């Protein structure tokens, strides 16, 4: 039986979503790290290099970098590369606004550091303020 973890967080954007996790342990800047046209992390040597954002639940500590990232996140939906949901350790206003423009379920303020709990490829189901994590590796 795969291990299942259930966590509560604060739902910044309520809703339901599910998908495979895409975890960055460092704060994310879409400008410089992600090709918006292809929806791919393309920063050489980054832990998510060549990974696609589309339909994934992105998990990262918080946003950083350019204010244009909120509009770049919206642009991801226009290039059909939008993620299904976002889990942040801490809310950062620009990436929160990006999530609001995308209108995808987004949670923050978990009791534990979310980036340490979720591994890349775990299956995640978001239901408002509840996150279910099915571990793909033990």
């Amino acid at each position, binding site marked *: 039986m795969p291990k299942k973890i259930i966590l509560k967080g604060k739902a*910044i954007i309520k809703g339901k979503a599910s998908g495979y996790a895409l975890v960055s342990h460092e*704060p994310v*800047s879409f*400008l*410089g790290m992600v*090709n918006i*046209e292809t929806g791919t992390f*393309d*920063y050489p040597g980054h832990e998510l290099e060549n990974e696609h954002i589309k339909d994934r639940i992105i998990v990262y*500590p*918080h*946003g*950083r*970098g*350019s*204010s*244009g*990232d*909120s*509009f770049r996140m*919206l642009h991801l939906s*226009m290039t059909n590369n939008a993620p299904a949901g976002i889990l942040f350790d*801490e*809310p*950062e*206003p*620009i990436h*929160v*606004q*990006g999530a*609001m*423009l995308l*209108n995808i379920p987004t949670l*923050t303020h978990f009791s534990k550091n979310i980036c340490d709990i979720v591994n890349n490829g775990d299956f995640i189901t978001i239901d408002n303020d509840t996150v279910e994590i099915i571990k793909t590796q033990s």
Partner: protein
Amino acid sequence: MKLTDDDKRKLEGEYGTVIAHAMRFLADLGEAFDAEEMIDLDFAHVYTIEDYRIPGHDKTLLAEALEENVKCVIPATAWISGFEMDENIYRKISIDDEKREKIQARIEVSRRLGITCINTCAPYIMCDQSTPSFGAHIASIESSAVSYFNSALGIRCNRDGISALFGAFTGRYPNFGMHLDENRKGRHLFKIEAELKNTADYSAAGYHIGEICGLDVPVVANMPRPSTEEMQGFCSALAVSGAVSLAHIVGVTPEAPTEQAAFQGGKPERTYHITNNDLDSVYEKYNSPSDKVDFICLGCPHMSIHDIRKYSELLKGKKVRSNVTVWLMSSVQNIYLAKQEGYIDILEQAGVTVLTTCPINNPGIPGPNHTSINKDYSIGNFATNSMKLLYYSRNSFRPKKTFFGSTEQCIQAAVSGTWEC
């Protein structure tokens, strides 16, 4: 969240669909950050987003705003990247007529909404009445402007996106983040022990501190008083590697006459010593050994009138090597003034192009095609004194090699065609 009767009227649609949506967005943003109330804004620097639609609507938000005769209720400015004052520059930066028409149309729409198109990423160095004063509450896009407003001027501002436009439309903003005294309290202490000699050094220090801080507020002690360009380099880099909105620079930031004031009487959570080794590690990561240089870009963020003059003096009587492209970037207003003062003539005679375009966000970089269209495109070897531009250049320019160094190194390379370490 506590809303005034007028806030409620806006929210309920008495002022039209666009204002209702703007107020809803601001209220939701406030809820995300546990804001208890809305506050009045004094100023906003906005992005007039072209392709955003209220969910379920066919028309764009801006088209609906024009139909509903929405006008900003506070002083508001915007930058329509790609706009140039000099017709000849459009050809140099490969902006065709179709693209120009789009830029012009966005300018027209912005004006009709009551927004002044100052066309700069550095609204804080506008020498007019639009920049508010110490303690003011504003909303602004441009991560580098946010950290400058807070750190250099003590103007309260969060890292904004579309919230700046909605703040300009409604005059209101949720009271959270950098607008609250308690969130402006310093968290970590950074003692500068490195020698900060030039803009690149300040920029490298900002990059290093931003990486450590993430979202936290640093207090920076022993920093030699920065020039405008050095301060821009420092603040912009803080918001590249991190998401820093405010850095208290002791003796510079209005709220930080002393370390104690910056920590609001508290103690630092952690103390870091910033040494030459820390700066060297940034240089080592982003600097290449001596080689030929193809493209040099200075003025990220947009430079002040004083810096345009400085560069015109450094380049007076000199000539940029024929196969090197040199761009200096500043605001419409500064370039207008620099023309009048004769600085632009000197720079143009030296072979430098002075423009307002952001090379990160604009396809008009020198060369046949923008990177996202042509995957094989590369700007060649690229040099700058800005960590911000250097970090983001990878997506836009695909440089073969990057050089990061002082203004003087950049100018020397422009003239000789070679980067000397």
